[in-house]
């Protein structure tokens, strides 16, 4: 793959309710921050990708409604309905096509304005599933059950993820929900849909993010600290929950295998310095760690209990606080990429991990992690 770099990033604060900003205001803020970070003007951006979801926005063609806010006039624009990691993938392909030099990618979400359970219910099949009332949390609970029973993963091991990530969030200025928690407190939080308790679930969030990708030659002109895309892949599993082995991470394993091969990584446990993954629920961090090859299947809980994934561990996972500490859907995956870019640059601030050379960002799309997108980034082309 021709080298492509992330040359600018911007995130709004993640909040439970961004009342003072509408969608477009959030997109404008994130875009401005990414441009300022890159030291670019909007004229130097030659195409734009927006990422949004119509149901969440409560309008059709939601992507087009924010074009004014991300400087798209007279530019080639296109849109992705899905997680930010997939939108950024599309942007990457546009730059790789050779037709574009710089691409601005924007994602926005205001969970505060809709009803999350009703909207996520609508992702299920209208003939066979939707009238049963299933939603994102109850479907995730079905996955958590199968995963935890198959491998003997305890609720306490899942709770550790929540304790760790909410704790990490104290050092991330954009995080919504830093919490000083104990495993006992997570265990004592009320069941929503067992085995998932309130503190196993990510919050409803508002936020927007933007990043700028550039071709090799442009990246070197724009910044002294380009973050290079070393490997990237995505892979999809079955849509119907009953068609899948919900305890299996086969789609993630395949995406990771391809991304590692592209990046020339043979031993991710040794070669990766920091991970930002999509922990919409605490158990997901354990599953995705396994799928990414950092431990054997079913061993994610042990890896977490050992402290290796803590901020001061051998492999810090979600030093930003992850989605558990703020989950603007579709923005969340883009934030994982942005956090990794900041880590590689050494610009992550208080939650900077020391000596990061290679980072992994991960996003999901569809119910219970149907599809996975893996990004490997580093400081050298």
């Amino acid at each position, binding site marked *: 793959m021709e080298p492509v770099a992330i040359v600018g990033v911007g995130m709004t604060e993640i909040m439970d309710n961004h*009342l*003072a900003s509408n969608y477009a205001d959030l997109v404008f803020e994130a875009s401005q921050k990414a441009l300022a970070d890159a030291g670019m003007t909007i004229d130097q951006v030659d195409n734009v990708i927006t990422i949004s979801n119509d149901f969440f926005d*409560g309008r059709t063609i939601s992507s087009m409604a924010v074009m004014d806010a991300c400087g798209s006039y007279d530019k080639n624009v296109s849109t992705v309905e899905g997680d930010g990691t997939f939108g950024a993938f599309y942007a990457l392909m546009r730059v790789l096509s050779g037709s574009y030099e710089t691409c601005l990618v924007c994602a926005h979400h205001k969970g505060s304005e809709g*009803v999350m*359970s*009703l909207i996520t*219910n609508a992702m*299920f099949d*209208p*003939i*066979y*599933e939707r*009238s*049963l*009332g*299933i*939603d994102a949390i*109850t*479907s995730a*609970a*079905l*996955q*958590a*059950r*199968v995963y935890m*029973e198959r491998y003997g993963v305890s609720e306490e091991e899942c709770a550790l993820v929540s304790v760790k990530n909410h704790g990490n969030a104290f050092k991330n200025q954009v995080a919504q929900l830093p919490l000083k928690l104990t495993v006992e407190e997570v265990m004592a939080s*009320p*069941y*929503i*849909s*067992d*085995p*998932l308790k309130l503190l196993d679930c990510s919050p409803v969030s508002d936020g927007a993010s933007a990043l700028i990708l550039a071709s090799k030659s442009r990246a070197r002109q724009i910044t002294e600290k380009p973050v290079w895309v070393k490997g990237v892949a995505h892979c999809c599993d*079955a*849509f*119907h*929950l*009953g*068609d899948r082995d*919900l305890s299996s991470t086969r789609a993630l394993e395949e995406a990771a295998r391809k991304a590692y091969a592209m990046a020339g990584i043979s031993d991710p446990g040794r070669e990766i310095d920091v991970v930002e993954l999509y922990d919409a629920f605490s158990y997901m961090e354990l599953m995705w760690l396994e799928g990414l090859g950092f431990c054997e299947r079913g061993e994610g809980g042990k890896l977490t209990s050992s402290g290796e994934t803590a901020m001061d561990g051998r492999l810090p996972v979600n030093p930003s606080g992850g989605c558990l500490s703020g989950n603007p859907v579709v923005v969340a995956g883009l934030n994982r990429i942005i956090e990794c870019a900041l880590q590689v640059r050494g610009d992550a601030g208080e939650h900077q991990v020391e000596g990061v050379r290679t980072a992994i960002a991960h996003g999901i799309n569809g119910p219970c992690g149907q599809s996975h997108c893996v990004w490997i980034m580093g400081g050298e082309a």
Partner: protein
Amino acid sequence: MENWRENQEIIVMEGRIKVPYTWAAGEVGTRYLETLRDQRKFMGTRCPRCEIVYHPPRRNCPDCFEECEDWVELGSQGELQSYTVVRRHHPQLSPLPLPFAYGIIKLDGADTGFLHILSDFQEGELAVGSRVEAVFAEEREGNIRDVLFFRPVKGVD
């Protein structure tokens, strides 16, 4: 601007999107739902190549992409592959009063699981791998809720 904000609450528009919509079940879905309604029987389709029996029935095998033309009658009992007891009632979504559960159920004769509701169980009675049976509605309309819910099969280990 800052002074102005001190005395001004942000204005929030309220709305409700309500768009009538229809979803055709298609020939495969209609045959399935009609059999459920008129005969209280579940049907699946079998892939001619990998022989996987899909339930709900599928026009094509998602695994190998062959067209599934064989129909297979399934049992109305099956194995519970996963479950979650819902602890928070949602006025617009919850299909039954609490406590109810969601389950993924692999019916006898099927190779895939399907999603449905569980009710009429005791606390702690549900288990992965346990046997459950369908309870049909008296008045059936040709939709997935013609099955009221599944419940544990009584008196069987």
